[in-house]
């Protein structure tokens, strides 16, 4: 009896797989995105790879990149129709560098990047330059903090260092940087396509699918949007700030960055010899009062700099919605979009003409028809807008996928991923149908899936397949 049932399930699964319109493969490297979309197109499926990255500090990260590249090569027969690089963070691009040779061996027809990565785009150039300078500033501050006598300051520096692993492995040389990974991706195709919010991609090799480009926005305010703190802009830490100037070699720092004319400033050595200043220096340097010294406190601005940088670069995520023209169902890939990025989706309006009928499409239509949601930024709190975002995804068949390794995020990085404030609602909205790279999603026996009835759950389970190998490379979702 049991055997018959098992055989029956296997048959169902095979049918589901064969008939699926698309297979979405999420690789299981840990924290980092790599999604291979294989669209059913007769005997020659079409392949789009969205990102390939492993967060700095992940054990075996280079090996993982090569495994993924090899698997992509095998699945696609050596030809990928398009590769998307959503935004310049290491956990999305590292694979193109770490498995450079493997990717070079592939035939890649197109590379899609956002306007922000376009060297011909003045705004994009400005963004890149600013990111580099801020990163440089944060790293310089960290280098100084590493030698700080204050233990609490060093602990905070270590946490900031973890955050900078989005730009390359901690302590790595410039060659293994996100910028280098982006270049490696860029050279896979002759000329990348740079996308704008509001673009509609209808590749002729992918009939029956429309691809909406929702983001990244060009709006400065939305990119740096500080929700909950309106009007408070964090200028003053950028390239032209006194903060950065003070971190540079003093000989190159311009005098203009000093708060007062230099004649008013006394070095500590000179101050010690001055009758008026000596008592002040003595008080400040007194061993009994060392606990009140502030020598390193200004460097901790690096914390806010790193947060700002992270927020802006994540907001530069290219967000794509794949729509099946026949069923109008949508696959939403939100990359690492933060709130400002989500809010910008309201702006583009797509006008579709079909003969004489014109229809307008907006982001909220797409959200309402979403059946697969690639959860933003490994399930962190700020990367899924609730009202007008997750709450607007009202399709009863919604499935979500999170590229996260909870244990690694919590224990090693000390990050809240998936966010305790978001995850339970995600389970509710999807009726338990959440796929996780770390395999810790709901299972058939899990009480968390109580939102799905038995029949729905079985149907879902039949569409999911986990790589049985060691290590298990991927989890597949077959969209019927």
């Amino acid at each position, binding site marked *: 009896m049991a055997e018959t049932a098992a055989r029956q399930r296997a048959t169902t699964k095979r049918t589901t797989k064969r008939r699926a319109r698309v297979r979405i493969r999420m690789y299981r490297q840990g924290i980092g995105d790599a999604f291979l979309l294989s669209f059913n197109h007769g005997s020659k499926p079409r392949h789009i790879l969205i990102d390939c990255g492993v967060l700095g500090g992940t054990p075996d990260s280079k090996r993982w990149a090569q495994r993924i590249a090899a698997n992509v090569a095998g699945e696609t027969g050596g030809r990928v129709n398009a590769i998307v690089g959503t935004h310049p963070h290491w956990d999305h691009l590292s694979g193109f560098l770490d498995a450079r040779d493997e990717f070079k061996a592939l035939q890649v027809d197109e590379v899609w990047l956002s306007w922000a990565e376009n060297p011909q785009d003045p705004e994009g150039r400005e963004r890149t330059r600013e990111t580099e300078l801020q990163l440089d500033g944060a790293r310089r501050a960290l280098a100084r903090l590493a030698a700080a006598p204050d233990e609490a300051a060093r602990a905070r520096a270590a946490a900031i260092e973890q955050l900078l692993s989005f730009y390359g492995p901690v302590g790595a040389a410039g060659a293994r940087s996100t910028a280098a990974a982006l270049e490696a991706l860029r050279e896979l195709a002759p000329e990348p396509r740079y996308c704008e919010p509001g673009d509609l991609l209808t590749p002729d090799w992918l009939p029956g699918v429309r691809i909406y480009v929702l983001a990244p926005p060009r709006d400065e305010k939305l990119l740096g949007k500080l929700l909950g*703190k309106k009007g408070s802009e964090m200028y003053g830490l950028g390239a032209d700030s006194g903060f950065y100037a003070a971190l540079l070699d003093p000989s190159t720092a311009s005098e203009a960055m000093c708060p007062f004319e230099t004649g008013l400033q006394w070095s500590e050595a000179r101050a010690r010899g001055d009758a008026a200043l000596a008592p002040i220096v003595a008080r*400040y340097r007194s061993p009994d009062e060392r606990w009140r010294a502030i020598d390193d406190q200004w460097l901790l601005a690096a914390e806010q700099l790193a947060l700002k940088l992270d927020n802006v670069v994540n907001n530069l995520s290219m967000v794509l919605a794949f729509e099946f023209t026949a069923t109008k169902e949508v696959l939403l890939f939100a990359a690492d979009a933060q709130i400002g990025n989500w809010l910008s989706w309201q702006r583009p309006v797509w006008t579709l003409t079909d003969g004489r009928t014109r229809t307008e499409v907006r982001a909220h239509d797409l959200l309402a028809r979403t059946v697969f949601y690639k959860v933003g930024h490994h399930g962190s709190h*700020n990367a899924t807008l609730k009202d007008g975002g997750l709450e607007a995804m009202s399709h009863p068949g919604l499935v979500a996928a999170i590229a996260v390794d909870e244990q690694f995020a919590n224990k090693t990085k000390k990050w809240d991923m998936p966010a305790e404030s978001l995850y339970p609602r995600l389970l509710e909205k999807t009726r338990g149908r959440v796929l996780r790279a770390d395999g810790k999603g709901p299972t058939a026996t899990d009480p968390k899936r109580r939102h799905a009835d038995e029949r729905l759950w079985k149907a879902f389970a039949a569409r999911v397949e986990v790589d049985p190998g060691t290590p298990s490379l991927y989890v597949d979702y077959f969209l019927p």
Partner: protein
Amino acid sequence: MAASPRRKKVRNKPQPAQRAPASTQRAATRGGRPPRAIELPQPTRRRLRGYAFDPQLSTELESAAINEIVYEVPWEPKLEPGPRGDYLDVIDYDPASGSFYPPVDLNDRALLAQNGLAPSEASPQFHQQMVYAVAMRTIEHFEHALGRRVLWSPRVQGDGAAEYVGQLRVYPHALRQQNAFYDPQRKALLFGYFPAADTDPGRIYPGGTVFTCLSQDIVAHETTHAILDGVHPSLLFPSNPDTLAFHEAFADLVALFQHFSLPGVLRHQIARARGDLRTRNLLAELAVQFGQATGRYGALRSAIGRVDPATRAWTRLEPDPAALMRTHEPHERGAILVAAVFDAFLRIYERRTVDLVRIATGGSGVLPEGALHPDLVERLADEAARAAGHLLTICVRALDYCPPVDLTFGDYLRALITADLQVVPQDRLGYRVAIVEAFRARGIYPKGLRSLAVDNLVWDRPSDEVRALLRKRPLVLRPYANEYAYLDNRDAADPRRDTFEHLSRWRGELHAAVQRLLGSLDDAQRDVLGENMGLDLRPGHATFEVRSLQFTRKASPAGPGVPQGLLSIVQARAEAGGRRGAGSFLFRGGCTIVVDLRSGDIDYVVRKNARSDARLEAERAFRVSSRAGLAGTYFGAVDETDPSRLLAQLHGFNPESDHG
């Protein structure tokens, strides 16, 4: 309007004049008095020039005239260069530039003769003078309202020993960023400076440097954080969405009301606005202008009212009672509290001035076109300054009637009402009703009350049963109070240190007294007492800490005030955090006991139940949501290991979501 107790001018008591030591050696000789040195009274106030707002306003013709004012601060006889006095130690070290700036000597004859240095952005010594003046003024406001000396929160060493901190360190040029904060670990104020943005070149010289230490608002705000930490250290351990928000709101309220206590500024503004009091609310408009000028009090713009740019007509906005439910970010949440208190202030001001307007208009209440009579301007400004002073005092006094842990806005409302009732039993000008109305309109009210009637909001008095239990081994505070009254001896080397040390010792003695009391009770009695004091007194659980002891006799217009002793008892136990079990935290409960020192009776027990499961669950949920922001994602929830980070971050960049 009849004269009411509120009308009485509240002035600082002049300090008793001290005599020069030389004059005390006076030998009485037979046959006439020998010649003696002239006795010079010591000064009581030090006059220091400064900005009323910040340097930007001095460059605008309209406001230049009022922006440079003279602050009067208490005279500190032992003030050293720095300035370094009894309360503050300004050390002007700029680590990013690697330089020290020479300290200002306010006792220099040249400076004494001309009220200190003239305001100047280019002079670091003026910066030192400005932070000193504003911080001292803020301290004085608190001392006046609390009726006791301000003590900074002690330095807690690794072994838990609390060490006296005499002076708050002030670093006027500590940071190169747009930030300023109170660092509770260093007991220091850190002010930053940064290049002005070129986004608003109309007002600010692009590329110029903005110094946070030159803004009266910022200095008053940060100083208030430090003072509040001394009064209520538990507020830096956020346990619900209101705790940090309260810290922010309170600091803003103090800064805001300090503006309104500058009559020169008020006179100028009221005269300029020509006092069309029928359609506009001058003070609200003024607050909005303050907000625009200083980039603070954002909520006042939206929460109090709006000036139509075309007609210049002011309309009061209906407050949104649901806003509090939607708002989680501490600044925004705090802004709602600021708006509520400010609204109460407006109601009180209107009530205080309606008669003046009637008198000035022959009963019609409709002011004619054109400039107002200078006498009327004077009186209106006077009323506004007085009402602002009252509100500030009430807000500060309420701190004594707050629970020792886990403060919510609703608790604070009850504390406000209770505090005011102690001082002004007859509320003839309707202050308490105005406060309740303004709070209710913004959805701020305590949970679990039958009605929001004023007498219902006063904290509960303990039941007869509880009184009887407490009387079995009474907590005798009066001897301490008597000694306390004479601790503040100006001749003592360091009266504040004396006070601190005595209070620590007495807390230890009272701990023993409470234990004796508990020892005299049987289990059932302990249970009753624990329930009423918010403590877990079951055998094996009953470790507790006498957190604070204070004595107060708040002077009031109605009389000398009731002498009270305030004792807070706190319990803490470790509890597991959220879903992951990680992030265990200390769950606190306890009570503030208010004792009438005349009779020894207990007036109020303000409690937060340590045994309440509902409170525990609420705090757990709060801790989960506090990881919600971007900083929370990467750097963890607000925690107790590093309160320094908390305030630095609160004032810096932390993009929060508004949908958590």
